[in-house]
């Protein structure tokens, strides 16, 4: 359903932002040429048929050719996708891992100096815009200290269908700054959520019982409290992973990261409609998939949901 709506929006952009015939043939084409092309593109068919054709080809990952490079859009996106996914996954892992760790720490040591310091400095993470953080990081670590590269992916290794920066030193190094930039906001969010949920869960009776049974703090925090905060944390982390992919645009621009986001920005400059609509569909698709995975993990975590599921299937 969501995908259909997203597809409709990208279809409308595709069809109505500018005239594709003008875009392809330019101003000096003859009427005959235009008619021939309209025929070839199916533009004289009724609108719902066009939408249907668009859907059918989208399912087959067929988005036509880019206006600018005349390359198939699908190929263009596929070649850029690994860069974006590696960046998004790294920063999401960074954000979720440090978010949960710091969240638990600040919840357990509530009111201590270090906790208060982490909490107040995390406000910076929320309030500074992403591009500013990126530029600041470049200034400190690339310009002043000259430790880390400021743009690009470094050396990548081609695995045929996938190019990865994980396997080379320069690839990993170039990943650090963009991942921090992209993941900082998620980290702050996950941290604050983890902290709030943790404080709530630690008030529960089963935690009090666990204490009165003489379990150690470690057992209580990791086996009793942590699993019970995972559902809200995973929900938010999942939603955030979607937006990490979507908002990678800014980070990719700042770091000249050769991913889908940068492709999109360039597509916007040159009004490359097929690329734009394909990108929109892709992001919508990512959101849907991630939410599906999140829903499945609920069932994995919570036995109560598992049983409801079984009952409704019977």
């Amino acid at each position, binding site marked *: 359903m969501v995908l259909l709506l997203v597809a409709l929006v990208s279809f409308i952009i595709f069809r109505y932002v500018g005239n594709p015939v003008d875009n392809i043939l330019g101003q000096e084409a003859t009427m005959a040429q235009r008619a021939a092309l309209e025929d070839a593109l199916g533009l004289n068919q009724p609108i719902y048929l066009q939408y249907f054709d668009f859907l059918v080809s989208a399912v087959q990952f067929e988005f036509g050719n880019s206006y600018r490079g005349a390359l198939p859009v699908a190929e263009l996106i596929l070649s850029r996708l690994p860069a974006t996914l590696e960046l998004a996954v790294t920063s999401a892992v960074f954000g979720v891992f440090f978010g949960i760790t710091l969240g638990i720490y600040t919840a357990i040591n509530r009111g201590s100096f270090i906790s208060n310091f982490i909490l107040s400095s995390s406000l910076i993470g929320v309030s500074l815009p992403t591009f500013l953080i990126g530029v600041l990081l470049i200034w400190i670590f690339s310009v002043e200290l000259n430790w880390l590269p400021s743009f690009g992916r470094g050396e990548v290794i081609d695995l045929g269908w996938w190019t990865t920066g994980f396997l080379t030193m320069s690839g990993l190094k170039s990943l650090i700054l963009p991942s921090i930039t992209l993941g900082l906001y998620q980290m702050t969010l996950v941290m604050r959520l983890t902290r709030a949920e943790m404080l709530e869960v630690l008030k*529960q*009776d*089963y935690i*009090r*019982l*666990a*204490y*009165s*049974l*003489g*379990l*150690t703090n470690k*057992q209580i925090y990791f*086996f*009793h409290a942590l*699993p*019970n905060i995972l559902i809200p944390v995973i929900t938010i982390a999942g939603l955030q992973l979607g937006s990490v992919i979507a908002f990678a645009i800014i980070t990719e621009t700042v770091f000249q990261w050769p991913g889908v986001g940068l492709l999109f920005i360039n597509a916007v400059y040159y009004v490359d409609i097929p690329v734009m609509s394909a990108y929109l569909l892709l992001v919508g698709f990512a959101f849907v998939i991630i939410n599906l995975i999140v829903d499945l993990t609920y069932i994995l*975590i*919570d*036995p*109560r949901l598992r*049983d409801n599921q079984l009952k409704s299937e019977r």
Partner: protein
Amino acid sequence: MLEIYNLDVNLSYRGSQIKALDNLSFNVYPGEILGLVGESGAGKSMTGLAIIGLIEAPLSISRGKIIFNKQRIEQNANAFRGSKISMIFQDPLVSLNPLRTIGEQLVETIRTHIKFGRKEAIEYAKSLLEEVGIEQERFDAYPHTFSGGMRQRVVIALALAPKPSLVIADEPTTALDVSVQAQILELLKKLCRERETSIILITHDMGVIAETTDRVAVLYSGTLAEIGKTFEVLNYPQHPYTKGLIEATPRIDANSLNSKLYQIPGVMPDLKEIPVGCPFHKRCPRYIKKCVEIKPPLLNERAACWLLDNEKGLL
């Protein structure tokens, strides 16, 4: 076995200290069941939490000694929690971790306190389940598949698993059906008698006190009003408050049909406004001048009431 001397618990409230428990002293003997009774807010649960060392800010133990088997525990209850003293709470529906099977929770508690291998621990856990009346097959079941009464049985198994010598049961049956209450109390009583484990049974139900306990301590506004053998306290109450509590207990017999239930006049004072003198005097039908001025100590090792000061034993 457990001795409490002059225990004060303070509540810090906007910079000032309010006494929530005031000069509380009593003993628990090996193998006995001591009832702790009083109205809501009298400090029953707080006494339990103080013994097991789970008092948290803004509350704190400000004075007194808690001695367990000749060792002072009021500052390092951690070492005793679970292994020597454990606690059962009021609402079994929220007392178990919903995401883990009861077997996992039992084995975890057992292995924290007893040097058992995994297999031994599982065997022991299953035998405990059997003892509290749950089939061994339910070992891998999650808490939400049990009823309230069954969950309280699991909690009892958990509390007894490390073989403690004292169990504090904080209103263990208040949240349960009347018919289930008796079963749970009998089970708790039986298992503790077999193990020679003492119980501090916190309740506001005089009926439960009468049926279950050996001795009873009556709390009022954080102070001990009366303590003694259950039989004596219930039949010959020495403190007007105890008397009121007993009279306010509903009865089911022919004479009581349509008769009006006795009520103790007034309400227990707020902790911030406990009056000078006897905390009960404003509600007491028989208070004398001294009650308004000086707080009575425990007299005749029985009741904190100035009326006992005149002759020997009154009421």
